[in-house]
């Protein structure tokens, strides 16, 4: 049985995998034939060797630092985003006050804000967490809020006709109906959050994959930069897959649009 999902995976993605391998092979050839210098684009095999030789600092020191920022930032964003969406849903006043601010927060270039975070939090983990939250907060709030609002009036009336109070309607109708939209935001956010943590590290850090890639770039070590990028990409894909899996477990039974 364990072969089955793997087989399905290869069936679905075989064309993509083929394309990917061909591109890598071409890059490898271009660099080895000295058509492109290796400090611009490293050879894929060189990147893999880099990861293998430096797995200890890369994975244990830097990846774990980035993941810690990610986990704290993303969790805080999900909790506060969902709470804010619920407050906006229940109170028109809060919605009118806060919703524009949430939208504007997306218009502000985060890189421009980051010196302020460094000013507030110094070079501690919290300046990176702040960037992470700011970058992934929006999809969570909007996804949850739109989901909560999307509930069909007819269903609400049906439950009201049974004598349901506002809390029961929220619990039995609005929450389940909000899940698909919440998860669209959740899946976007989980990827953004990793990007946020990495950007946060550019601003000033002593460890983390963002910090590492920047340092390698300063050393003109393209292999090092691409090693960090490769690891971040793989982690991003895994996180997205995890989010999709959670979504499937909770809504896919009934939600056809997935």
């Amino acid at each position, binding site marked *: 049985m364990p072969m089955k999902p793997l087989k399905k995976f290869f069936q679905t993605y075989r064309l993509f995998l083929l394309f990917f391998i061909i591109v890598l092979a071409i890059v490898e050839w271009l660099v080895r034939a000295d058509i492109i210098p290796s400090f611009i684009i490293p050879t894929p095999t060189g990147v893999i060797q880099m990861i293998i030789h430096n797995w200890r600092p890369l994975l244990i020191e830097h990846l774990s630092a980035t993941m810690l920022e990610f986990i704290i930032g993303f969790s805080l964003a999900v909790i506060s985003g969902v709470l804010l969406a619920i407050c906006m849903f229940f109170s028109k006043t809060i919605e009118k006050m806060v919703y524009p601010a949430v939208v504007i927060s997306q218009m502000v270039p985060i890189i421009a804000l980051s010196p302020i975070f460094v000013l507030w939090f110094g070079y501690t983990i919290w300046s990176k967490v702040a960037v992470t939250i700011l970058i992934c907060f929006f999809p969570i709030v909007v996804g949850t809020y739109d989901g909560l609002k999307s509930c069909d009036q*007819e*269903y609400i009336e049906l439950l009201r006709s*049974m*004598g*349901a109070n506002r809390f*029961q309607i929220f619990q*039995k109708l609005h929450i389940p109906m909000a899940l698909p939209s919440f998860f669209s935001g959740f899946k976007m956010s989980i990827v953004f959050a990793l990007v946020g943590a990495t950007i946060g590290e550019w601003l000033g850090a002593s460890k983390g994959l963002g910090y590492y890639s920047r340092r390698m770039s300063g050393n003109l070590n393209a292999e090092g930069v691409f090693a960090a990028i490769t690891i971040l990409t793989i982690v991003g894909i895994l996180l997205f897959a995890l989010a999709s899996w959670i979504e499937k477990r909770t809504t896919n039974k009934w939600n056809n649009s997935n």
Partner: protein
Amino acid sequence: MTVVLKNVSYSYTNEKRQKNLVISHLNMEIKNGEFISIIGRSGTGKSTILRLMTGLLQPDEGEIQIDQKDISLGDVGYMPQKDLLLPWRTILDNIMIASEIQQDVHMTKEEASIWLQRVGLSGYEHVLPKQLSGGMRQRAAFLRALLTGKDVLLLDEPFGALDALTKKEMQSWLLSMWQDLNKTIVFITHDLEEAIFLSDRILLLHPDHRIEEISVPLSRPRKPEMLLFEEAVTLRQKLEKKIANETT
């Protein structure tokens, strides 16, 4: 359980803040165990009467009472036009919802399963609504209204979306359920034959807010072939004539 509507008027306010009269001075008494159909052209306020009787809408004037008490939300079982089964809940969980909401309704999963058997849905307890056919979903929705445990059931065109054959089956099925359970049913339909076949009395709503009451001269228990009796055919022609001459 006698339902009384005394001098009930209702108008709704549209976007331009104009008041549109829908129901005007409606008086009606529904006796315990009666089956009443409401017919009339679209826009004559059939659904509005039902929504007033659930308590979802408040009348501008007059009062609606069940056993001398003003009606409020949760007093009657209501089945809207669409089945509105919650798509994420299994059939069993869907019909259990009233007992989750109302404190005075107690039902175990076993009892609910027995009910499903009774309406011909045994084996579908743990199936999601989307896997059921239209007729089956309608039976589940009816059961959900029934299991609110209320003596008065308001059914808003429950069979409107079904094909002719399924509709006929569902009508006989509904009558047999009604006879066994001693419920009072108010039933909206567009289908004159359906109204004649099912009801004791028919309320005909006119666009000028007049309401006519017509008794159905057929004995119980009803059989489909009774629709071919002379009195049924005459009644049908009479109703058709009344409705055809009207414009909304």
